[in-house]
């Protein structure tokens, strides 16, 4: 199976490079670029990248290397895209969809070594990289801001293993007919596990905030003081501020650190109908930004049905008290209540994260969690519809093996140990 990873640091930059190695990498590339031609060896070429629905989302430059003349010794594709984390994860997601998997840490180098692309004396340094791989899950867990991904995953694993043990006991030892109790109890446990896993998968977006930054967008009617707020928050003069409506014609963005959370702060053009084609294009992008934002700082009165990830801000407290319902009242111009706003932004961003105990921060973890979820759901279907306990066990074992990749290895004996310690075995 080919593997893929982003080779440049996560976060916003000019460009990012996604590398893909393995037999199928060329065919995956063809699917993303909708191109039928075989690229030339070691030549950079411009393409358009399309998502799975066929919509283009970025212009990319691709350099292809054919085996064995590549870094890894396999077919290798290097995609340079724009350095937006959204674009990078889109490309990774598409590669996975078309049959790649996310690379293990150090895998490119390891593959290069195994294929004899490196000097033998480098063995020791390579083995260091390989060592990093096995504790990857634990390491990431330790880094995790919510504190201990690996422990939480272990809890889930313990539940799955004990559920599996109950099933195995029934298959391997009891000789009894199916007991309704077993089915009911296991269904309860599985239901709970599916919920937990589901919310863990959902946290990916919000917890990836800590890795690739939250997108916070300032919106509001023209002349509401969006750019002033932007500048105040950024503390620089990057955005142009004038009195003429529609001056900010495109999205201006800047990375800032708000109470340890990296934030991509974006100033949008005022959303209004305009005949100016340049401004219209800007408005389109603004809408797009609003839809994908983690948080919107909206300089408008709170509507009857306020949106979930919106903060409604009154920005003219220097001109008098607000005449409607707002979440907070500030003055960007006079820098009044700005710290309070900053605290509110960070607590809102963190708040949306508290939906699950398990925080997932990388695409690798996300894919594993999705696999866990799928197996658990299938197990539940088998358990509730056709009583095929051996298929339930099959799916649960798969779930355990995916969880193992996030933590540590479970062996068949571990399952049997649970069987012997929790059930009275023997006729």
């Amino acid at each position, binding site marked *: 199976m080919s593997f893929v990873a982003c080779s440049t640091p996560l976060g916003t930059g000019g460009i990012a490079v996604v590398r893909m190695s393995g037999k199928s990498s060329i065919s995956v590339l063809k699917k993303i670029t909708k191109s039928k031609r075989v690229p030339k060896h070691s030549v950079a070429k411009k393409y358009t990248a399309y998502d799975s629905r066929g919509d283009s989302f970025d212009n990319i430059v691709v350099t292809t290397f054919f085996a064995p003349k590549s870094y890894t010794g396999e077919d290798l594709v290097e995609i340079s895209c724009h350095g937006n984390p959204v674009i990078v994860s889109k490309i990774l997601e598409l590669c996975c969809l078309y049959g790649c998997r996310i690379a293990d840490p150090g895998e490119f180098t*390891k593959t290069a*070594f*195994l294929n*004899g692309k490196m000097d*033998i004396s480098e*063995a*020791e340094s*390579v*083995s*260091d990289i*390989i*060592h990093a*791989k*096995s504790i990857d899950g634990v390491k990431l867990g330790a880094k995790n801001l919510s504190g201990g991904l690996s422990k939480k995953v272990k809890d889930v694993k313990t539940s799955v293993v004990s559920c599996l043990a109950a099933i*195995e006991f*029934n*298959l*391997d*030892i009891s*000789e009894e*007919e*199916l007991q309704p109790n077993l089915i009911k109890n296991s269904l309860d446990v599985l239901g709970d596990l599916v919920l937990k896993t589901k919310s863990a998968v959902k946290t990916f977006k919000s917890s990836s905030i800590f890795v690739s930054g939250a997108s916070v967008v300032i919106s509001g009617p023209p002349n509401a003081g969006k750019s002033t707020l932007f500048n105040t928050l950024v503390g620089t003069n990057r955005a142009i501020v004038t009195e003429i409506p529609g001056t900010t014609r495109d999205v201006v963005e800047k990375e800032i650190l708000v109470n340890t959370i990296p934030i991509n702060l974006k100033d949008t053009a005022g959303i209004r109908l305009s005949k100016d084609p340049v401004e219209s294009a800007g408005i389109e992008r603004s809408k797009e930004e609003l839809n994908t934002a983690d948080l919107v700082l909206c300089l408008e009165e709170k509507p009857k049905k306020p949106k979930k990830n919106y903060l409604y801000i009154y920005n003219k407290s220097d001109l008098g008290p607000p005449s409607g319902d707002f979440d907070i009242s500030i003055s960007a111009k006079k820098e009044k209540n700005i710290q309070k706003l900053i605290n509110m932004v960070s607590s809102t961003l963190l708040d949306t994260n508290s939906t699950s105990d398990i925080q997932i921060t990388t695409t690798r973890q996300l894919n594993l969690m999705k696999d866990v979820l799928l197996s658990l759901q299938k197990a539940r279907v088998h358990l509730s*519809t*056709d*009583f*095929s*306990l*051996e*298929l339930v*066990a*099959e799916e649960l*074992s798969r779930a355990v093996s995916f969880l193992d990749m996030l933590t540590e*290895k479970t*062996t*068949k*004996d571990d*399952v*049997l140990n649970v069987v*012997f310690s929790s059930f*009275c*075995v*023997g*006729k």
Partner: protein
Amino acid sequence: MKRHKEKYDIVVVGGGHAGVEAALISANLGLDTLLISMDEKSIGRTSCNPAIGGLAKGQMVKEVDVLGGVMGFFADKCTLQSKTLNKSKGRSVWSPRSQIDKLKYETVVQEHLASSKLNIFGGEVVSIDTKKNKVCGVLLKDKTKIKCRSVVLTCGTFLNGLIHIGEKKINAGRYGEKRSEGITECLISLGFSAGRLKTGTPPRIKKNTVSWDLGDPGFGDSDPIPLSYRTKDFKPKDEPCFSFRTNKDTHSLILENLSSSAMYSGDVKSAGPRYCPSIEDKVYKFSKNPSHVLQLEPEWTNSDQIYVNGFSTSLSEEVQLKCLRTVSGLEKVEFIRPGYAIEYDFFFPSQLKNTLESKAVDGLFLAGQINGTSGYEEASSQGLLAGINSSMYIKNENPLVLKRNDAYMGVLVDDLILKDTNEPYRMFTSRAEYRLQLRSSNADQRLLKYSEDFKLLDKKTIDILAEKIQKTNDLVSFLKNTSIKPEQINKTLKKIKESPIKESLKVSSLIKRPTFFIKDLKKTNIGLPEGINNNINSKEIIFEAETIIKYSGYINRQKDEIDKIAVYENKIIPEDFNYDSIKSLSNESREKFKRIRPQTIGQAGRIDGIRPSDISILLVYLKRTFHVKQK
């Protein structure tokens, strides 16, 4: 008694289930084989429960059968009751089990052996002669020497066997049978390391001292399935077993007398099997259970001797009897003999190759309880493989090594040589990661190719099985390629409460539904291909084709996984590989690699506690060695 000659190809030591299989297959493969047993009259004895097969074990008996073994075939001749366990669950875990007539089984085995080319001799082997780490003969207790090129040791529980009944200790191999001494010491001097294990057996009681009307009878299946593909017209008796239950009084009596149990007093230090706990273990560890089932099983036809399944114990005879008498229906029970625990020597099986040949001594094979396993079927499986590979060793031909996805027998050997046993090893279906493929119903599909290659079965049997397999595959492709229209089947679907189909689809996709079967096609005009309904195995063919289709999604996924890891299974680690040369290996892994000396990267990865990173490092170094050699 036949006299022995001076020289044989193979000497098999021990006449239990492992020894019988090893000796017979070697003789059948044309090797001059001698079976030595301490007591010829006990050859083929079933020392514990009167049943063959069962969960995971039934699958193994069928595998043994396809590979030319005899256990299932003999059991079919002595069946008192036949039942497929787990029938309410999926087909991959269906496991046939037969209650058998133990006396008849011994007779059948001994008669068959007497009519075979095998030589049998009553005597006690005390040591193995070797020359330059190669087997060259055995030495008997009376100092006679017998030359041979290969030895298969199947000594069961006889090596320094010690029986415990409460505080009473008896030197014995089985109740009333002498133990064997010398072989352990001999192997240790050859560099082997030995350990001690414990197993137990329940009391045997007198039939006429039980109030049978108070027990709950259990019968076999109305459509029994034989354990052997070679058995025709299988119409066994259906003698019931009876369940009784222990109660509060039984439990408190056991707890009061725990100190009389050899296991609890500390007299027995070796580990016993957790899956077959003694009654004192069950009562002590699961004190919340108000009652445990005791199943009373006849040991032979019209047997006066009854086996009390579920009451394995090392309590003193007096306490055993008192406890049993608290059970409703057993108030007046009398013993033929008490239950007991037995401790015996075994050799850590990590000292064996995947052929069951020892790594230290060429031509020396070990099989059965001597390798730390438990169970007739586990013994028989190993005996058969050891017999085949001992023969291949002498013929200087490739050995038979089954993969984990071939058979439970493959799982068994692989687990044995790679895992450290601290309790007697018993097979469970959950030990097999490819359980869905290892069904009792498809042992022939999985293993016939080996029987053909190694000439383990007669040609006629092979032809019949090959035809059955061919017909099954034909039926599967027919069902995959035949379309069915809504108007052909929707009536039937309604009748069996299945949702109707909206457009034409392949018949196989209907069969993938959990509750749709080939028989449901009867009302349609879709006839099965010619030659299926009138084949002698038509029932099995239809059953198996259905199963293949129902599991196909899962099996295909597993096949992909198997392909992925196949490359590791074929990556050989040189026997003299120097693990100390790799500094980056973790110490724990290095020690394990050095002790177990895995033969392939695949094996290395399955050793307990080995980190994936260590396997990667090993690969890197092997690649390096390989590169260097190529240059």
